[in-house]
């Protein structure tokens, strides 16, 4: 039963482990797919951004002369209201004018008012006449703006051209859509670097900042960008933490551009967590099923074991539950059998009772030896039978018995039989006191003497008692020694079969834990070690 139990347990364990490994694989596969997806999104976004930038460059090329024209127009109308000028130039234009300290004092672009352009002083002084910059990312509005500039009388005039034609906006919208579709995209940044003039700027062209970067921030961005640049020169692109970077040439001309996407993994993590939860739930569910099965199986096994015990006891089984049908039919069968056995036993007991008195009368009235011997044999059979019938109510009360005297008495009792059978009994008995029930002892001794008389091939029978080892010895041989041995140690031998005498002996020695040995060597010796029950 334990084997089955173990096998069942192992099977469940293997099953669960397999499920677990499969789930882990699924989880990992999903992670891989995600990584791939991440890169696809990255390059898609990069491409869209480049398309957007090229659209700007395209327009820049077209508008360059218009911007210079507009600059000249403003230069000649510096004292006029800039918003009026702006109306004349178009919505795309913004006008900036600084004082001598390079601080913007007059502008159409309110964000830049009081903003210092001192950081670009060198640039302004590096050329004469009207210069024009490449489109620059403007953080406050996310617009790309190209600035024309001129430095006259200590003041700088800048005209900004905003690239927001429908065509450009369409490209920008594409990026927005990409971002919308892929919730993983958190932010997109562009970094422009110009190593030759040691300048870098950070640009988020999707989400407006609604203010200017402070100088401090600009400084920090610059340091950060150059650091990034050094890293990207070694390895390009880089995927680290929740961001992806790629270094490329600046589509606007000199220098470089770094494209960066910040990813939001929470969406992805939520998805993975969902899988994980399903996994855990599945395992718990399987575990639950496993436990339920295990308990049920245990219940079945317990029932079977309990039932087997009852079957062995040949007893009714008090049981209520799932297996009642089996138990009921078993109980009915056992009841029938019990009734049958009881009726047979009743009959036997009746016969035994009827035999008692005639046997007693006969025993008292016979005179000649042959009759006495015959009646003693009859009595012996009667006693065996009575003992056999009473066995289940077996007397358990023991008392101290002088075994030597007891055996002498029994030999004396057998005297008539011994004479008629022409046997000679040699008895060499030492003193030995044992603790035993007297009727058990009588059946035990009588049957051994009777067997020795029955199976001796010569007239020789020897009974010895030494150190509380009792031996009954006669000439002859036993062919099926093993069979007798087996009989002796089979617990149910009392229930019949081989001969009631041996059965009774075997049940008694089992009952008292008497060590038995059968020696056959042209002699048959039944040897009983009674040391286990000597008087204390």
């Amino acid at each position, binding site marked *: 039963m334990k084997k089955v139990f173990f096998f069942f347990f192992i099977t469940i364990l293997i099953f669960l482990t397999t499920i677990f490994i499969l789930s882990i694989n699924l989880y990992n596969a999903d992670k891989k797919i995600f990584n791939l997806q991440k890169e696809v999104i990255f390059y898609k976004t990069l491409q869209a951004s480049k398309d957007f930038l090229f659209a700007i460059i395209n327009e820049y090329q077209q508008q360059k002369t218009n911007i210079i024209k507009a600059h000249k127009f403003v230069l000649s109308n510096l004292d006029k209201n800039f918003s009026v000028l702006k109306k004349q130039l178009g919505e795309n234009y913004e006008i900036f004018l600084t004082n001598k300290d390079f601080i913007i004092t007059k502008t159409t672009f309110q964000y830049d008012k009081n903003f210092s352009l001192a950081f670009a002083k060198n640039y302004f002084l590096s050329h004469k006449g009207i210069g024009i910059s490449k489109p620059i990312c403007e953080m406050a509005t996310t617009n790309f703006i190209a600035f024309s500039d001129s430095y006259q009388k200590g003041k700088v005039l800048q005209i900004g051209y905003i690239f927001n034609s429908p065509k450009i906006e369409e490209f920008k919208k594409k990026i927005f859509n990409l971002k919308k579709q892929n919730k993983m995209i958190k932010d997109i940044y562009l970094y422009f670097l110009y190593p030759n003039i040691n300048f870098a700027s950070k640009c988020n062209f999707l989400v407006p900042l609604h203010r200017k970067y402070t100088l401090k921030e600009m400084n920090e961005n610059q340091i950060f960008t150059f650091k990034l640049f050094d890293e990207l020169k070694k390895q390009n692109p880089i995927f680290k933490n929740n961001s992806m970077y790629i270094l490329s040439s600046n589509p606007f001309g000199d220098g470089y551009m770094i494209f960066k996407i910040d990813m939001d993994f929470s969406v992805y993590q939520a998805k993975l967590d969902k899988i994980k939860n399903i996994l855990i739930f599945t395992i718990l569910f399987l575990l639950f099923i496993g436990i339920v099965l295990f308990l049920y199986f245990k219940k079945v096994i317990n029932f079977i074991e309990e039932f087997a015990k009852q079957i062995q006891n040949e007893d009714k089984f008090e049981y209520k539950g799932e297996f009642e049908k089996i138990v009921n039919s078993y109980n009915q069968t056992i009841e029938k059998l019990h009734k049958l056995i009881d009726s047979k036993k009743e009959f036997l007991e009746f016969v035994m009772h009827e035999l*008692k008195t005639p046997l*007693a*009368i006969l*025993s*008292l*009235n016979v005179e000649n030896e042959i009759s*006495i011997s015959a009646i003693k044999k009859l*009595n012996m059979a009667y006693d065996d039978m009575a003992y056999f019938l009473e066995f289940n109510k077996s007397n358990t*009360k023991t008392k101290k018995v002088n075994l030597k005297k007891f055996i002498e008495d029994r030999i004396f009792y057998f005297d008539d039989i011994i004479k008629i059978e022409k046997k000679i009994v040699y008895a060499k008995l030492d003193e030995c006191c044992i603790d035993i029930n007297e*009727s058990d002892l009588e059946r035990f001794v009588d049957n051994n003497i009777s067997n020795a008389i029955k199976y001796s091939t010569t007239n020789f029978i020897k009974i010895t008692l030494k150190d509380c080892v009792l031996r009954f010895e006669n000439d002859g041989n036993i062919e099926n020694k093993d069979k007798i041995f087996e009989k002796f140690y089979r617990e149910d031998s009392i229930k019949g079969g081989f001969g009631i005498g041996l059965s009774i002996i075997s049940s008694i020695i089992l009952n008292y834990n008497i060590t038995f040995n059968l020696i056959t060597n042209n002699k048959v010796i039944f040897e009983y070690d009674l040391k286990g029950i000597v008087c204390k």
Partner: protein
Amino acid sequence: MQIAIIEDEKDLNLSIKNILEKEGYRVDSFFDGESVFESNKIYDLYLIDINIPKIDGLKLIDLLPNKKIIISSNITDENIEIAYKKGAVDFIKKPFFKPELLYKIKNLFPQYVRIKDFEIDLEKLILKRDIEVPLLKIEVDLLLLFKNREFVAITEIEDITQKSGGALYAFLSRLRKKTGLEFKNQKGEGYRIG
């Protein structure tokens, strides 16, 4: 010596009575537990079966005087223990044989010696035959010589009585008068009692 058998199986009862009477005991049979009291006699020994009508054998042990032997086939440990506790002196398991019965009874009454058809009570120095006759110690010693023997040599009698010739003759004739026992001298064998 008087023995009462209380056993409801008539054949068995009479068989036991028969055997005991042959041995010279005076025996009365009773077939239930009550009738033994109706006899108004006290017996030296009662043989009692356990399963008898009216009064149970084990109860009878309490009610009857003197020595009691239980004869029964109902030999559970419990019954044996109860019987001994109540004062039964022995227990004979049915079926039993003549020697066993006689041996046990004789063992119980070592003071009663049977010689021929009379009995001597060694304790009370009484000869029991049809009547009870008180004896002298010297007379008991003489009679004991005849136990289990047919003839006793004259020299043995002279030794034990310290008498011979006329004195011995007078001693024997006095004993004969007292007990009714005849002492006959058979030539070459010795004295015979009859």
